């Protein structure tokens, strides 16, 4: 039968719903991004600087948590149904997790945006890292918890589908896309324990006033227990597309199925015991633990380096299938006119550059120079902000037609959109890296100070600000083009096969690979042991230092902020 929507109409409806939530957040988040880029650099300040932090919290939460994860929920639902070749076991469960995640996300968004209307008395200007003892309204923590529980239910849905499939196919290898979904979810279950404990046992009771104090270092460490693996939770949908869809778009097929499995297993094992690398500059955690986290982090480069190989090799294979020749000339034979292909290829390229700046972050001593400077947003707008976000947008050009049975409104506009994102990001992120080296801080409404100036190695601060503002503007235009293209596509007339949705089998299939690769219990067990090894001692010493509940009372973000500001400025 024709395409995904014809084969699995009920699943397609859920995927469409998750994508709508994802794209709405993308639109709002990108608008906030533009406001930030113009405000920080001093070009246009439509808001009071106090409200900058409301916008910034919204930007971080809507893009890094809502957009990426809702896209993931849809993509994984699509991948499980199509690769197992069967509908999900019970569509009511599927709608239930959609309802719960959406309600949770909406509550969080309401708690944040209410900060713009002071008379409501609700505020959650705590940024997406919500470090205590800054205290948000309980709605924020409650919504967050609902959202996480919803993702757990989604994982259960996919595991149930797998179990049903396994009963009918006792001897088959797990289909590759399902394998990717299941390993990613196992990693997610393991790592979300950190935020769940932090929110449910500490922050929520404390925001309601049931307990008086928190231990700020403990909740911070629990956040990063989750905060690094979440990076891979963003990245795995992109990897799924790079491994299983990009080779096909390039005109070829995946190089090696077993190697793809190895990569996903490595992520399951290594993603969580590294979170302390975000805390190199935190007092109260000894250097030894930081050193262990650093070593693990470096090994976590391995699966990404392997991915780089597979992606390039598969693209070259595709190009040669299309008649490409020579050492570099084959590049010209790739389907550059296809926005889905070009977007993913540009995203992969940007990821390579982001990888280099990441290696610098991971080195403990260099980290001292750039910690909490603009370098860091410069880095992650290349990784999550481009490698992930651009792959998701590009992938949508190929996926959405399968979900609606309607063709894409305009391929040339799509192409322009992905190229515009790439160019915009080059400007913004390059300038952010440089400004970071000069010491310009991140998360700051007005990084212009009274008692000193920043000095840059090359060029001037003014020039860097112009690049940030210009890049941010291009990025915003790109998002607008994307949303319009998708919106207009929904008015096209339905057709038989709006896009070629077949995925050819890999060059070397799973058959020859060791069976142990598919042993999910074994890998989960090892992952748990690694986490226990990396975290027991640091958490233990943090708790013995200041107690489980510490001695920091709450500092609600709503305390008459404006009056305080006047006092400071005066």
């Amino acid at each position, binding site marked *: 039968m024709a395409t995904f929507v014809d084969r699995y109409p009920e699943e397609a409806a859920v995927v469409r719903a998750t994508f709508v939530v994802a794209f709405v957040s993308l639109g709002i988040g990108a608008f906030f991004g533009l406001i930030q880029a113009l405000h920080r650099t001093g070009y246009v300040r439509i808001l009071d600087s106090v409200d900058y932090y409301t916008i910034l919290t919204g930007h971080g939460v809507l893009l890094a948590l809502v957009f990426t994860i809702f896209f993931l929920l849809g993509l994984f639902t699509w991948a499980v149904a199509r690769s197992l070749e069967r509908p999900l076991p019970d569509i009511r469960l599927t709608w239930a997790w959609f309802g719960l995640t959406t309600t949770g996300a909406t509550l969080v968004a309401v708690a944040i945006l209410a900060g713009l209307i002071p008379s409501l008395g609700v505020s959650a200007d705590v940024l997406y890292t919500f470090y205590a003892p800054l205290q948000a309204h309980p709605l924020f923590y409650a919504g967050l918890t609902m959202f996480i529980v919803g993702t757990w239910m989604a994982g259960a849905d996919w595991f149930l589908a797998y179990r049903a499939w396994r009963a009918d196919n006792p001897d088959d290898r797990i289909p590759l896309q399902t394998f990717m979904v299941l390993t990613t979810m196992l990693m997610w279950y393991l790592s979300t324990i950190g935020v769940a404990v932090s929110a449910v046992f500490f922050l929520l009771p404390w925001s309601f006033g049931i307990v008086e104090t928190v231990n700020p270092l403990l909740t911070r460490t629990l956040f990063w227990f989750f905060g690094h693996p979440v990076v891979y939770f963003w990245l795995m949908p992109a990897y799924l597309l790079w491994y299983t869809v990009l080779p096909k778009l390039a005109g070829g097929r995946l190089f090696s199925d077993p190697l793809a499995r190895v990569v996903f297993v490595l992520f399951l094992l290594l993603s969580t015991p590294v979170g302390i690398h975000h805390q190199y500059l935190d007092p109260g955690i000894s250097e030894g633990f930081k050193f262990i986290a650093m070593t693990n982090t470096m090994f976590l480069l391995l699966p990404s380096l392997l991915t780089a190989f597979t992606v390039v090799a598969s693209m070259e294979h595709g190009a040669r299938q*299309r008649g490409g020749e020579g050492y570099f*000339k084959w590049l*010209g034979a790739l*389907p*550059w*006119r296809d926005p889905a292909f*070009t977007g993913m290829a*540009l995203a992969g390229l940007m990821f390579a550059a982001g990888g280099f700046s990441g290696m610098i972050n991971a080195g403990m001593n260099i980290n001292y120079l750039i910690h909490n400077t603009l370098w860091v947003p410069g880095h992650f707008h290349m990784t999550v902000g481009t490698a992930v976000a651009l792959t998701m947008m590009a992938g949508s050009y190929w996926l959405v037609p399968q979900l609606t049975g309607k063709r894409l409104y305009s391929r040339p506009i799509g*192409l*322009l959109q992905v*190229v515009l994102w*790439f*160019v915009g990001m*080059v*400007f913004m992120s*390059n300038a952010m890296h440089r400004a970071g080296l000069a010491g310009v801080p991140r998360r700051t409404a007005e990084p212009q100070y009274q008692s000193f100036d920043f000095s840059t*190695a*090359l*060029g001037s601060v003014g*020039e860097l600000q112009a690049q940030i503002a210009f890049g941010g503007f291009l990025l915003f235009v790109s998002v607008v083009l994307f949303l319009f293209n998708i919106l207009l596509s929904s008015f096209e007339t339905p057709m038989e096969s709006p896009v070629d949705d077949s995925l050819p089998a890999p060059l070397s299939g799973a058959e020859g690979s060791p069976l142990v690769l598919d042993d999910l219990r074994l890998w989960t067990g090892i992952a748990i042991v690694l986490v226990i090894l990396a975290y027991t001692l640091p958490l233990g010493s943090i708790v013995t230092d200041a107690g489980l509940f510490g001695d920091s009372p709450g500092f609600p973000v709503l305390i008459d902020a404006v009056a305080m500001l006047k006092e400071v400025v005066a």
Partner: protein
Amino acid sequence: MKLTRAGVLILVAFSVPVAIELRTVFGLFGIDLPLAAVGVFEVILVAAILVAYAITAEPETATGP
């Protein structure tokens, strides 16, 4: 090798980071280029790409899928 219009767009996109990082390269040798140099260099790159397109291009309809 024939250059399509899509190919030109991609090459122009690639030329942007190359032009921006030109300054870093010169910086390593102790030469501080002004911003204008980057602009001029970018214009030269774009011109080169367009010339290559004009020379190699075939009618758009005749090129592949």
